[in-house]
């Protein structure tokens, strides 16, 4: 019986020992080599931690980063990945929430790590890779893991201005990976092309399909996404068969006309998620690659990456709206009304999820956890938690789930989840900003900040660039004498939306 992802890693390392597991533009690791790295890192970390401790990993877009993640797991710990390109303020917030005693960084990120408000120990990954493996210690640490132990904590935008750390267990991750790989038919002949930052939830497929299914993953250099023909050349050179990308990543080459020059020749499966797919771009993919399996995915980090999927069988038109489809195996979807009752068929309500894929909560934040993970109001008889997604949905006539947007002010932009309130919190910290309101122009994919006060838009953007992730920085800043208000004094967002250019 499986007790952790290590069971899968052990089996894969044996079965696929000499096969390439991870590759980037410079290096490659076989399953055997990867496994040995995790053991070296794990042995080292076991000497510095107690089983069950968090380990922060700040490492770049290369093949050794997943080895650090799994190395932490080998030590009986769980990992909290951080993107070193994020502003220092953000990194400090994450460190403040996770309070880890140990941080593992690659050499390239050492300087940043040392500049953080961090009083734990920092270890350079390159220095610990040669640690002699102690199998007895590793076996002991592996034994401490049960299937509900935390595997990782991944941070997402929080409306209060502090990011929330979503804790995922081994069980949840393996359940999701098995369900999604069944739909996509992922196997050991597949080569994944990784787009997502490795610290981000969308990367779990690229990391765990190799571990679970024997697939290989190629980590695509970030700047190739700015050069679409180079991106497609890479897909062909590496014979990439499957992509699990954000909608933003999928639309990019279509927007920039890459198909006019070159086509991905080996691609068989394309799964996209993160936001609503504008079908005029999917249409371009379908026209150029009609035999590819296209899958639309929906779901929040709190339910382990995704809840539902829809296999796109028909040719789409520009104005097609894709359903979000059916629940994956072991995902239960309920749609609840404001009164916590199940809504009648076809009516809108809040999408709620339950099953073994529910996160263990928000790290170090019991209050927020209790607010979001609740007893299923339809079940008075035994303990059954549900997660209220804040997304509105309804069941369509064909049994597919339809998505109708958000209940609150959370948006999806460039594949990332953003609380507009978090941008406003940041703007209020800029000198010369009085009132402000952040809104999203979805058709144009522009993030706006309307504000009053003497601050120049340059002042604000410079502050944002230092304090928020790049994807959260508004492209359009509009200085107004006064923000329009409703009779009750609240900001009139509908009127503000008419100011979109």
């Amino acid at each position, binding site marked *: 019986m499986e007790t952790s992802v290590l069971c899968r890693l052990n089996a894969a390392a044996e079965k696929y020992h000499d096969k390439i597991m991870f590759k980037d533009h410079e290096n490659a690791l076989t399953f055997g080599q990867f496994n040995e790295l995790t053991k070296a890192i794990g042995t080292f970390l076991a000497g510095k931690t107690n089983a069950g401790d968090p380990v922060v990993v700040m490492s770049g877009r290369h093949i050794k980063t997943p080895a650090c993640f799994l190395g932490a797991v080998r030590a009986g710990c769980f990992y909290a990945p951080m993107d070193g390109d994020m502003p220092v303020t953000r990194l400090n917030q994450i460190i403040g929430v996770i309070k880890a005693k140990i941080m593992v960084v690659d050499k390239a990120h050492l300087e940043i790590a040392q500049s953080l408000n961090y009083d734990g120990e920092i270890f350079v990954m390159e220095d610990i890779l040669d640690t002699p493996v102690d199998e007895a210690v590793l076996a002991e640490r592996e034994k401490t893991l049960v299937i509900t132990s935390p595997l990782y904590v991944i941070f997402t935008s929080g409306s209060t201005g502090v990011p929330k750390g979503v804790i995922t267990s081994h069980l949840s991750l393996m359940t999701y990976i098995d369900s999604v790989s069944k739909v996509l038919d992922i196997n050991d002949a597949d080569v994944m092309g990784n787009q997502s930052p490795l610290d981000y939830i969308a990367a779990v497929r690229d990391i765990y399909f190799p571990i679970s299914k024997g697939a290989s993953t190629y980590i695509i250099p*970030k700047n190739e996404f*700015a*050069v679409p*023909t180079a991106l497609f050349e890479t897909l062909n050179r590496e014979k990439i068969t499957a992509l699990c990308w954000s909608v*933003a990543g999928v639309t990019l080459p279509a927007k*920039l006309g890459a198909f006019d020059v070159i086509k991905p020749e080996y691609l068989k499966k394309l799964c996209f998620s993160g936001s609503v797919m504008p079908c005029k771009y999917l249409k371009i993919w379908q026209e150029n690659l009609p035999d590819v399996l296209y899958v639309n995915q929906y779901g929040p980090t709190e339910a382990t990456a995704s809840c539902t999927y829809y296999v796109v069988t028909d040719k789409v038109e520009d104005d097609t709206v894709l359903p979000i489809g059916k629940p994956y195996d072991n995902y239960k979807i309920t749609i609840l009304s404001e009164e916590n009752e199940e809504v009648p068929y076809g009516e809108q309500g809040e999408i709620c999820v339950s099953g073994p894929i529910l996160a263990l909560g928000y790290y170090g934040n019991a209050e927020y956890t209790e607010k979001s993970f609740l007893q299923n109001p339809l079940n008075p008889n035994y303990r059954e938690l549900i997660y209220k997604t804040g997304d509105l949905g309804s069941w369509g006539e064909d049994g597919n789930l339809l998505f109708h947007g958000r209940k609150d002010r959370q948006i999806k932009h460039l594949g990332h989840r953003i609380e507009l309130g978090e941008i406003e919190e940041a703007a209020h910290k800029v000198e010369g900003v009085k009132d402000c309101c952040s809104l999203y122009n979805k058709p144009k994919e522009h993030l706006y900040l309307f504000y009053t006060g003497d601050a120049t838009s340059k002042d604000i953007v410079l502050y944002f660039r230092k304090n928020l992730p*790049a994807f959260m920085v508004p492209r359009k800043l509009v200085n107004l004498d006064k923000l329009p208000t409703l009779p009750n004094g609240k900001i009139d967002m509908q009127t503000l939306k008419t100011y979109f250019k």
Partner: protein
Amino acid sequence: MMDELMEILEELRPDVDFASETALITDGILDSFDIVALVGELNDAFDIEIKPNNLVPDNFNSAKAMLALIEQLQDE
């Protein structure tokens, strides 16, 4: 024309010193989403059509290179 280009670039990324940077793409200073936004703005402002083949680092690594690309496309 350089002034107009600099104005567009300044508005796109006020945090970048476009007058001195010479590896905007190679060093990852401009990301893919900046490029999508920039291509749209340049096409509109200069009445050109930037093709996928033009989207190589050499054409976007500096403001000067972008200006050369714009001039070349306007001549076509």
